[in-house]
């Protein structure tokens, strides 16, 4: 077992264990904070897959943006002062059966199909310049559409999230 494999298993352990806490913890705050470790573990996996730009993006957007947003949601929609941060679960047994089938099928499929595929021996370089070039050439239209969608989504979210304004008195 080489260093690469050991590091992979370290990040995989961090990711899977914290994802378990996200899904099974009864305390919402614990779930939200272990989601942080899941995102960091996934960012580490991106580094192992030589996707440096995406690893940084993952940390910036998921940890810095989405996770903070989710924590805002938790804080705004629960009575934090009365410590009502527990949450219940529903139909656990059917979900467990479903998940076991899904995970078993996928894992068996992936194992039997791609177990022999090792990494191609190419010289690795930083991906940022070529990603930027791709976004400005072959993926220009999806890039522009995505930016418009982002703008619309943010305006829409801001409009929906604030309270309805009282009608102006004449």
């Amino acid at each position, binding site marked *: 077992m080489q260093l690469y494999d050991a590091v992979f298993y370290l990040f995989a352990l961090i990711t*899977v264990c914290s994802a378990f806490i996200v*899904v099974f913890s009864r305390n*919402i705050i614990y779930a939200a904070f272990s989601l942080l470790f899941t995102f960091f573990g996934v960012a580490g*996996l991106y580094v192992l*897959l030589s996707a440096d730009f*995406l690893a940084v993006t993952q940390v910036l957007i998921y940890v810095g943006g989405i996770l903070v947003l989710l924590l805002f949601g938790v804080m705004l929609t629960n009575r934090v002062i009365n410590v009502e941060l527990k*949450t219940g679960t*529903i139909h656990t047994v059917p979900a467990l059966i479903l998940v076991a089938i899904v995970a078993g099928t996928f894992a068996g499929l992936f194992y039997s199909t791609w177990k022999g595929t090792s990494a*191609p021996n190419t010289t690795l370089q930083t991906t940022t310049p070529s990603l930027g070039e791709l976004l400005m050439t072959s993926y220009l239209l999806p890039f522009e559409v995505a930016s418009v969608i982002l703008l619309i989504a943010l305006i829409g*979210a801001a409009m929906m999230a604030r309270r309805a304004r009282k009608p102006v008195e004449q």
Partner: protein
Amino acid sequence: MQSTANFLSEFLAWLPHVSLAHFLILSAILFALGIYGITTRRNAILVLMGVELILNASNINLIAFSRYGGVNLDGQVAAIFVIILAACEAAIALAIVLNIYHRFQTVNVDDISTLKE
């Protein structure tokens, strides 16, 4: 029995050498956990966390294939778009959840069933 033992020894020999299947199986585990979170959680925000887990699993798949299929950056571009859409989804969904909370004073997804009644 013989085939089971063969499979097991092959599996144990495969385990310490990271290949494409390692990343894919890890993403399958994350995906399954995300589905479990979506189906069992009552709090809408925890359902959203399950969605984020699923999106991360798909991203791992995209980037793993991009790395192991020659270093082809198309998969990474797709992963960037997935991240963008995840950000949009989180913002919109949280705005909706906040509105639901103002109206119903709860975010438990199984309590909000006025459409059914």
